Each structure stands twice: as structure tokens, then as C-alpha cells.
């Protein structure tokens, strides 16, 4: 943390925003973060807030669209008293780690002051990139290892080894041998291995492929539910459901059907499979080939075959009698596959899975067309389908691996994988892999990260049923429903007098009405997102901005080094004079819009910044900046330096400030005579705190950033809203959205903002908005004049009604979008397709022209109405 991280104990965590952002970026973006970016030195929250700019895949706008889902899913927007910025320590440690992970030299040469709280946190939140366990963890692990092993040697083991006491099992009627008598039991175990084999065989259940420790256990097992179920399956009584449109893989050894290759692999790696395998080997049972049996999907006629060995066992032994000595001599027997209901015998064992798949495909092809009487074409089709399915199975690549974080518990032993997208945890690496390929995860990825990802449709029986029912009703057509209304004239006769349902039915607050899977985009959402796409900077613009900012940051780094060598260090801390530089305002909050003219940076000094210092800094920085044609001017009124690159936007305003100015004893410290304007320095410090607050509260809040970008644009266009400062706007929007308690879509979020203003929260008589980043927590609304409050409120009230009556485009300053084609009408029904084909050519020609005309017409009309709106607003402003 560049050495400025312990300067004052109370505030050490407050000024780390950009570092946090870098940490977040590092944690989230992984490989997508280009290495040349120096995220650590002057961390820019690129990946977390501007995903489009960083990872190149997908359109910039569409990616940005989903940016609001990013945030920190681990930190839900729990409304808490806004007493302090809070959670500072945790974030500080995070940034610490990111820097450790990158292996960069700290910016300041001095080592960070040791902070016990931070060290403990460090071990707890180890990120993926720094795997090596810390010393503490290692010691702890070693100690616990010792403890675990120790008693094992000296005291009797609590768990008896089933094999170890095999002799007693041969006499089931006798009392069970007390375990402790045998001491450690290990020696007995060794001695008893000779017996183990026989017992295992004796109490071996063919159906379930397990061996039991004794007669009693074996009997219990036979009466158990699990065994009964498997037995029924083996006899072909119960039919196992198969996925309808997916290939299944079956482990013949364990009689387990898996729905995917991954699940199968996980099973094979799993302990249960290994145990069964070992047991079968030991007993000399037939071991089927290593490859899975492939079963065609249910809709292609695939069924679960009866388990191979169980079938034979059932035939020979009836399944209930222990098969003593029924071991088959040959260990390698070619497996018999039952596929698609018809038996197919592979005469030679196919080692190659791919080859086998082809065979299966062919077999299913023949099975699917009912005994081969179907035509050749049909057969081929089925064959093609299956191979396509198999290919699809192989093609499902895991996505969003970098959103899975590895967490270790305190002693560094136990690993948990946390999927940030789906908010779920795994303790098993196999489970993680499967999850990454899973449909739910892919859907979340599509929704939150990359909308271009294709996620296969789940065959929805419910939808089909509903469609069928709708069709039936359409066909019937006899039932005409009356209009609603309490007891309207056309109401159903039976329901004429409704029962007095004595209940209010308002949607109570934290009701999960926003189901991201089923949510249908409203017209408001569509308009907002279209507008948002036009506001969001494109990749080139982002890169240009990034280049400009980075060149200045390079200059600052050079400056810091320069001060390090020239200025004498202060006696107490030995800190650098230039402690660091951070991005603030739109840059750190990710609210950067297209055509932004100015972005802001803060240079944080150890001493109060002076004019002399600023002049020296400008001269020094110029040496390090490599961009051609730039200028640096001092803006003394603002306590800032304006950095401009010729013919390029944005300009960068670099504030000079120092935390010394905000300390409790700020009045006591001696101030140089040529000190820069103090209020501006304090303002820059406040901006730093705001950025930090924003990172914590807003980045993870659904819809928050989108709404803020939209509102920034609104206040650019409409003078009334200019009075509402960005910081006030951010505070209100955050409160308004987080007070819902559940994630809400953008349309509702924007509407809720207008609703809140419309209910008069701005007025003197309202609750006010306290500033969470100030010690005295003053009301940020007090800067507004009563008439301003009145104007903003009435404007919001009008905006709310405009939104309610479907005129959101007037608020957004855009043309009304053509109504969305509903997905149901877009989908062609198979029969319609046949009819359409004949006239398709004509229809295609006609349609686009019509649409274009219509759009143009609408555009003109809307423009005129928009003009009137603007006029009205202007008039209003004048009258006021």
C-alpha cells in the first residue's frame, strides 16, 4: 500500500479507494486484466466498473449493460446506520493482498507498519493468486497434524477398523469384542488381513457392490432402503428418469448414471467409485471397461440399461444370497452394453472413447427408428442428432472461472470455492468444475457478464402445456370473459358477489418480485438501457482516457521518486512526501460518460501542499510524461493542476492535498505561508472519502450505477437537476434503491428515485440526507435553496407521471423506441413455417420499408413534443 497506509491510526483505511478498486479488479478480472496496466500503483477499477473497456469480447455497450450486476456480491446492500465508512480494515487488507499477489515493489520504499488486525485478515482472505500459506498457517497446520496423529499412536483408536476385528465377526452370536482391549488395533489389523478377503467376499452384496463387515450389517443392508431401491432397479421395476435432450453417461461398475461427462468424471475420481473398484479387484469381480456407457437422451428412446453385473448376479444367485466364491476368473470381461432398449454387443473392447461414441450413435440410430424398418434418411438424422449432442457435451466450456474465488479457513488447510456470480460455495474441486459448466452458472454469466454467451434452452414442459392450453381455448373460442370491476355487468355469474376478503393486498416490502431468471424487461427498462448504451463510452474513448490518466500517473510516480531522493525524510515516520495519487469522482465511481471533458485525480502529500511545491511538482512531472503535446497549468483557485493533452479529451484535474489538514489538531500545525486554498484541499479529501463510500455501498447495488449515469445525463440536459450535486444524487439514489431490500431492475429503480423526490424528501420538513463521510454528518440538502427544492420536486413529480404513462423517452431525451416484439410472437410455430415459405420472399421485401417509414414518422413527432417539453421546462424556470 505504497507506504501511506499507517500514517494516522484512525484514518489509515479511509484513503485507499483506488487500491481497493485495484484489488477488486485483480480479484475479478483475472486474465482479462491486461498486464501492462499498473493496477496497483494508481489502481483504476477498470474491470469492476468498465468491463467493456477491459475485456474485448462482446460489444462495449452490451457489456456495459450488465456492468451493474458486478459489484461485490459477497457484500449485499444491507442498510446499516451510516455512521462511518465502515469495513475499512477488510478493504485495506484486500488491497494489501492484491499488491502481494502481483509481486510488485511497494510504491513507498518503507514497509507498511505492522498492524495486527490486518495480518489476521490477511490470512483469512487469501486470494487465489497467493497460494503459499503464510508462516502462521503452516505452523498451525503442522501443530494440528501433530495433534491428530499423536493420540493415534498412544491411545486406542476410537473407530474400530472393521477388518481388524474380523475374527469376532465369525461368531456373530458372541459378544462384540471390546475395542479398547486390543490397544491400538493396528497390529491386529495387520494380522487379520488374511481374513479380510474372505469376509469381504462372504458379505458382498452384488447389487450394491459393497461388502459388509459382518453378518448383522449385511442383513441390515439387505433390508435397507437403498438396497431395496437398487434391487428394484436391477429387476427393471423402477424406471430411472433420463434427461430429455442430453446424453447420459453410465458407470457400469457402480451402476450410476450421470447426466454429463463432468459428473461422470467426478464420480470416477470420487472415493466411492474407487472403493468399489478396489473391492471388485480384490474379489476378482468383473470390472467393466474404464469408459462410460453412453445412453441416448430420453426423447431419442434411450433408457437406463439394467446393471450388467447385477443382471448376471440376479440370474445366478437370486440376488439375496451372499455369493461365496462366485468370483469370476477372468478379470477383464468385455462389457455388455444395453443401449436404447436394444442390446448391442461390442465384440472387442474399444479403448477409445470417441470411437465408442460413434458406435453408440449408430446403435441408437438403429434403435430409434424402431427395429430398423425406418428409412435410411431418418436414421441418419437421428445419428446426426446424437453426434451433435455428444459434440455439444464436449463443447460446453467452463465459463467465468475467474469469478470463482478460493477461500481457505484459518489454518489454511480447508479450501472452499465461492462462485461470486451465483453466490454459492463448494468444498470440492469437482463440484466447482461441474458448476462452471452448469446451466445455472452459465445463465448467471450470460446475465451478468457476457450477454453473447449462448445458453441452451431448458425444455420447458410447463410452457408447452400452457401453449397447448392457450391453443385449445383459442380454438374453443366460446368463452367470453367480462370486464373486471367490482361486480361488472359482464362478470362471471358465479362470482357476482365476491366474498368479503378482508385483506389489504399491497405488495409488502421485501418481496422477491424481481426474479432474474424470469424477469421480463419492461418498456422502461428497454428505454433506459438503450439510453445507457448511448451514454456509455466506447472502447476507444475509454482507452484514450486511460492513456491520458496513466501518463499523468507515470509523472506522479516519477515525482514521488524525485521527492524521495531530494527531500529529507521526516524524522517520525520516514514517509514519502508524495504518499500516493488516487482517482476520484467519475473516474473511481465508474460514472464516466461519453464525451466527458474532465476527470479528477488527487495527489496526497505528507505535508500541507504549497504553491512552491506545486510549481516544483509540475516541472518534475513534465520530465516523466511521455505523451507528446501536453500542457500543465496551475489552477491556484482550485488547488489543482490541469493536465491537458492536445486535441484529446478528457482533461485531468490533479488536486493537491494532505491529510494533515483534516486532523483533529489541524489548527495547531504550522502552515506554510504560501499554502494552497485549504477548502479546496479539504474538498479533495472529501472526494476521496466519497469514492471509498461509493465502492462499498453502490458498486454492488443492482441498478445503482446505471441509474446514476442516466441521472448524470438528465442533469446535464435539464437545468433544474443541476442544482442537485452529484454527491447528493449518489446518496439519495443509494438510499432509495437499498431501502427496497431486494435487487430491483433499472426501470423500477429510476421510478423509485422520482417517487422518493415526489414525496417531498428534499423539503425542509423532510428527513434530510445526512453525509456519511463527514464527522458532523450535516444535511447535504441544506445547500439547496427552498425554491430549488420546490423546482426539483415538481420536476420529479412530473417525471414520475410521465414514466407512469409510458413517456419515459421524454425524460431521457430520446425517441420512443418501437414496441418490442414479444418473444412468443417471434417464435414461429412449425406449421406456420410451411405456409410462410411460399410468401416469404414478398413479405420480407415489404416489411423493412414499412418499419423505416414508421420510425421516421415517429421520430419527427417525438422531436416536436420533446421541444415543447423543453420549452415548458424553460418557461417554468422563468416563471420561478
Amino acid at each position, binding site marked *: 500500500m505504497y507506504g501511506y497506509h499507517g500514517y494516522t491510526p484512525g484514518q489509515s483505511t479511509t484513503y485507499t479507494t483506488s487500491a481497493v478498486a485495484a484489488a477488486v479488479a485483480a480479484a475479478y478480472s483475472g486474465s482479462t486484466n491486461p498486464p501492462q496496466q499498473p493496477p496497483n500503483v494508481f489502481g483504476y477499477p477498470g474491470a469492476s466498473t468498465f468491463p467493456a473497456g477491459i475485456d474485448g469480447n462482446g460489444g462495449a455497450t452490451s457489456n456495459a449493460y450488465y456492468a451493474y450486476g458486478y459489484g461485490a456480491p459477497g457484500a449485499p446492500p444491507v442498510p446499516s446506520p451510516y455512521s462511518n465508512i465502515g469495513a475499512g480494515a477488510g478493504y485495506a487488507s484486500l488491497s494489501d493482498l492484491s499488491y502481494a499477489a502481483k509481486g510488485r515493489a511497494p510504491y513507498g520504499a518503507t514497509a507498511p507498519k505492522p498492524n495486527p488486525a490486518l495480518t489476521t485478515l490477511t490470512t483469512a482472505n487469501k486470494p487465489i493468486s497467493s497460494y503459499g500459506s503464510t508462516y502462521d498457517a503452516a505452523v498451525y497446520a503442522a501443530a494440528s497434524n501433530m495433534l491428530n496423529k499423536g493420540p493415534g499412536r498412544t491411545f486406542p483408536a476410537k473407530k474400530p477398523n472393521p477388518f481388524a476385528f474380523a475374527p469376532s465377526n465369525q461368531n456373530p452370536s458372541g459378544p462384540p469384542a471390546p475395542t479398547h482391549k486390543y490397544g491400538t488395533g493396528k497390529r491386529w489389523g495387520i494380522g487379520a488381513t488374511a481374513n479380510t478377503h474372505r469376509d469381504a467376499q462372504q458379505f458382498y452384496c452384488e447389487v450394491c457392490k459393497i461388502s459388509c463387515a459382518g453378518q448383522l450389517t449385511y442383513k441390515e443392508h439387505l433390508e435397507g432402503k437403498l438396497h431395496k431401491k437398487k434391487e428394484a432397479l436391477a429387476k427393471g421395476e423402477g424406471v430411472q428418469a433420463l434427461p430429455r435432450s442430453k446424453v447420459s453417461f453410465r458407470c457400469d461398475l457402480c451402476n450410476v448414471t450421470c447426466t454429463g461427462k463432468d459428473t461422470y468424471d467426478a464420480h470416477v475420481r470420487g472415493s466411492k467409485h474407487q472403493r468399489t473398484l478396489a473391492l471388485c479387484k480384490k474379489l476378482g469381480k468383473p470390472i467393466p471397461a474404464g469408459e462410460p456407457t453412453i445412453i441416448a437422451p430420453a426423447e431419442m428412446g434411450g433408457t437406463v440399461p439394467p446393471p450388467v453385473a447385477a443382471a448376471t448376479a440376479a440370474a445366478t444367485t437370486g440376488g439375496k444370497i451372499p455369493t461365496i466364491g462366485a468370483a469370476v476368473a477372468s478379470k477383464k470381461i468385455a462389457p455388455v452394453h444395453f443401449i436404447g432398449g436394444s442390446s448391442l454387443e461390442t465384440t472387442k473392447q474399444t479403448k477409445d472413447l470417441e470411437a465408442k461414441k460413434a458406435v453408440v450413435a449408430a446403435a441408437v440410430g438403429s434403435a430409434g427408428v424402431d427395429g430398423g424398418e425406418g428409412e435410411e434418411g431418418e436414421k441418419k438424422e437421428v445419428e446426426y442428432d446424437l453426434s451433435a449432442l455428444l459434440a455439444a457435451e464436449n463443447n460446453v466450456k467452463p465459463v467465468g472461472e475467474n469469478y470463482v474465488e478460493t477461500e481457505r479457513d484459518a489454518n489454511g488447510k480447508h479450501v472452499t470455492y465461492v462462485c461470486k456470480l451465483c453466490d454459492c460455495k463448494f468444498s470440492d474441486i469437482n463440484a466447482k468444475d461441474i458448476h462452471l459448466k452448469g446451466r445455472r452458472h452459465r445463465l448467471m454469466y450470460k446475465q451478468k457478464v457476457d450477454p453473447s454467451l449462448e445458453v441452451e434452452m431448458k425444455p420447458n414442459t410447463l410452457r408447452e402445456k400452457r401453449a397447448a392450453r392457450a391453443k385449445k381455448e383459442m380454438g374453443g373460442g366460446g368463452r367470453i370473459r367480462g370486464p373486471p370491476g367490482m361486480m361488472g355487468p359482464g362478470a362471471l355469474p358465479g362470482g357476482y358477489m365476491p366474498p368479503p376478503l378482508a385483506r389489504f393486498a399491497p405488495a409488502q416490502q421485501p418481496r422477491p418480485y424481481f426474479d432474474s431468471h424470469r424477469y421480463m424487461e419492461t418498456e422502461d427498462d428497454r428505454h433506459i438501457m438503450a439510453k445507457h448504451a448511448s451514454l456509455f463510452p466506447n472502447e476507444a474513448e475509454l482507452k484514450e482516457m486511460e492513456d491520458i490518466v496513466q501518463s499523468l500517473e507515470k509523472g506522479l510516480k516519477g515525482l514521488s521518486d524525485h521527492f524521495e531522493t531530494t527531500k529529507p525524510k521526516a524524522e517520525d515516520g520516514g514517509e514519502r512526501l508524495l504518499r500516493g495519487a488516487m482517482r476520484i469522482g467519475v473516474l473511481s465511481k465508474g460514472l464516466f460518460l461519453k464525451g466527458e471533458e474532465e476527470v479528477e485525480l488527487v495527489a496526497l502529500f505528507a505535508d500541507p501542499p504549497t504553491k512552491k511545491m506545486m510549481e516544483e511538482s509540475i516541472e518534475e512531472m513534465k520530465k516523466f510524461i511521455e505523451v507528446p503535446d501536453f500542457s500543465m497549468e496551475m489552477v491556484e483557485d482550485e488547488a489543482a493542476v490541469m493536465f491537458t493533452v492536445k486535441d484529446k479529451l478528457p482533461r485531468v484535474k490533479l488536486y493537491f492535498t494532505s491529510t494533515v489538514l483534516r486532523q483533529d489538531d489541524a489548527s495547531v500545525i504550522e502552515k506554510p505561508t504560501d499554502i494552497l486554498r485549504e477548502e479546496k484541499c479539504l474538498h479533495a479529501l472529501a472526494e476521496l472519502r466519497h469514492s471509498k463510500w461509493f465502492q462499498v455501498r453502490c458498486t454492488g447495488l443492482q441498478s445503482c450505477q446505471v441509474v446514476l449515469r442516466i441521472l448524470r445525463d438528465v442533469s446535464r440536459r435539464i437545468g433544474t437537476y443541476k442544482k442537485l450535486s452529484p454527491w447528493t444524487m449518489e446518496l439519495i439514489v443509494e438510499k432509495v434503491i437499498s431501502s427496497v431490500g431486494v435487487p430491483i431492475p433499472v426501470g423500477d429503480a429510476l421510478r*423509485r428515485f422520482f417517487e422518493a423526490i415526489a414525496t417531498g424528501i428534499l423539503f425542509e420538513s423532510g428527513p434530510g440526507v445526512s453525509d456519511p463521510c463527514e464527522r458532523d454528518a450535516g444535511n447535504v440538502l441544506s445547500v439547496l435553496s*427552498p425554491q430549488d427544492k420546490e423546482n426539483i*420536486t415538481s420536476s420529479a413529480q412530473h417525471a414520475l407521471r410521465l414514466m407512469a404513462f409510458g413517456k419515459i423517452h421524454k425524460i431521457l431525451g430520446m425517441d420512443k423506441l418501437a414496441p418490442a416484439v414479444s418473444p412468443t410472437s417471434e417464435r414461429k410455430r412449425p406449421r406456420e413455417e410451411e405456409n410462410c415459405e411460399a410468401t416469404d420472399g414478398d413479405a420480407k421485401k415489404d416489411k423493412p420499408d414499412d418499419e423505416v417509414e414508421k420510425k421516421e414518422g415517429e421520430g419527427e413527432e417525438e422531436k416536436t413534443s420533446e421541444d415543447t417539453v423543453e420549452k415548458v421546462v424553460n418557461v417554468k424556470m422563468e416563471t420561478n
Partner: protein
Amino acid sequence: RMVGKSGFVGRAHPYRNKPFPFDLTLAQEAFPPTKEMEEADVKMTEEVLAAATALEPTDKERAEMGEFVTKVKQILDKILTTTDAEYLPAVVLEQYVEVGSYKKDTMLRGHRIADIVVVTKSMPTFEAVASIGQKMCDELSDGSGVVSMVSRDFGLILTKKEDKVRILVSTQQSNTDGLEKDLHLPLEMISKNQAAIYHAKRFECFSTTPEIRPLIRVFKAMRRRFPGLEPINIWAFESLIQYSLITTPTGYPLAAGPAFKRVLSMLSAGIFLPGSSGLGDPVDARFRLCDQLGFDEMDKACSTAQTLLRILCQGGIAVLLGQADKIPDISVEVTELNDICIAPLEKAFEPEEKKEGEEVPMESASA
């Protein structure tokens, strides 16, 4: 007109899944109330209650009305219980129920009308209704004064001096299928009268919060004073007031002052606008209170409430309660309070556009 313009038929209501509008009282965690707010609330409560007291009917009014209503009820009892077929031929009553502001005790001063719903077993023909009225007039006219009767489509009005009793006619559910135009009372009216019974019954539960009656009186008076609020019917107001009073984070009902402001806030936040979750009808959860409003009425009611709220927030409670010297026409005039101009709001809904919106689906359907 009972059919909601914004009503949706047969499907799940599209607004059921919408979030409830922003409600400051329920968002106290994000916007904690200040001390000044609490003080202002106490003051406002006093003012609202004082205004409500001034709106209560006088004792004389109450006594005279009570006397008249009791007599009418006696006659109705007689019709119900009599075994004499000739007493009132061709009319069989099932029951009668007192409804309306007289029953609820929310009458305004000078509004001397009581309502009684009569549920008939026989068919509600105009003749039957008229014969009930005639019988009433005959029985009630005695030395104390003459009772006159006027037939209306909802039933009839009995008048005795200044006092009026409206006899609203409803009928058994089994009769509703056989209703014929021009012969029987319209179904629309019958169902409205029937709804009045439910409202009256439901109101008994409402009245557990004592603040509700003063608030209803205040809002009734405001509804008369500011015509923009008229589209919202009394029942919707009563339900909204009840909701505002009892739905609090603590579970304790609000005082009259904050509840008064909250009702206006909820209206301003668009609880009766399209696209909002709205408030369910307490007597029939299938419908919302705003379903019967047209879009233009929704817009008008909402903008009126919004302007009133701004006037209230700028310290103009006297204007709202009718105590100011001059009550401005807030829909067009700019109100000036404490050097602040409170401008009227413009319309957001224009009916022409709605026609366009209707055409589009028709086109697509024919294509």
C-alpha cells in the same frame, strides 16, 4: 362506470409484481426521521384534528337524523316481519343494512343524508321500489312533518325537511341473472349498493384506530375543495387512510398529522398510477382501488395530490384544510407561500396518444 379502463382481464395482474411505491414511513432505515420532523408532526396532528372537529355534524343534526333513520328502520322491520300479504304486496325483503357515512359516523357537517341498503328477495322492479317508497311515505308522514319520496336508479330518496334517507336497493344473487333493462334496476347500481354493504362491514374493522374518522372528514372536505381529487372515491380514500395509519415499521398506528401527510405522499408517489403495485381493494383482493380510474383521472388526481403535498411541505397546511383566506385553484394558479412559488403541474397523460397505442396492437393483429 364500474369497468376499469386499466383493468386486465383473465390474466395475472401485470402490476402485482411491481414494487410498492416509495414510502418514507417504511424507509426509515435509509431516511431516519429527525427531531424537527417529530415536532412538526405533533403540530400538524393538532391542526388536522382541530379541522376535523370543525367538520363534525352538530348535536342537533345528529339527533334529527337519528330520529328519522330510526323511524325508517322501524318501517323496514315491519315489512320484514309482517305476515300480512296485503301490507306490501309483491315485495319481499331479505334484509336491510345501514351503510354509508351515517353508519360509519364520518358525516360532514351539513351533509344530512343517511343510507340504507335494502336487499330484496323478489325481483327489484321499479314498481316494487316505488311501492316501498310509497309505503314509507304513508307510514312516516305524521304530525311531525311530511315525508316525500323520489325514485332514482339506485333506489329512492326519502326526504323530511332537511334530512334525507337514501334507500339503496340490492337483491339476492340468484336474481341477478334475470335482470332486464327498463324493467329492473340496473345491475351496475345493484352491485354498487351491494359493495356498500361490504364496505360498511369492513369499516367496522377500520374503526379500531380512532384517528381514522377525523382524517376521513378532512379528506372528504379536501375532495370537495380541490376537484382534482374527485376521481378517487370515498372508499379508496378510506382504505388508503386506513393503510397509512396502520402500516408502520413499529406496528403502532401513526398519529393523525403524519398520516395526513402520508396519504398525500402515497398519492404523490403514484400509488394510484399505472405501473405501480397499487393498493388492493380490502373487500376484494382481485382488484385494486385504482382500477376504476381512467388514465386521465389518475393523472389528474396524482398531480393534484402532488401540488397539495408541495404546498403542505412549504407550510401551507391552512390552504389544504380550508382555513386560508383564499383557496386558490391549484390546478392553474401559482400559489405563493413564504416567498416560494408553487407552480401547478402539467398533464402527463394525453388521450390522443392512447388512441395510437390502441391502434398498434390492432394492426399487428390483423397483419
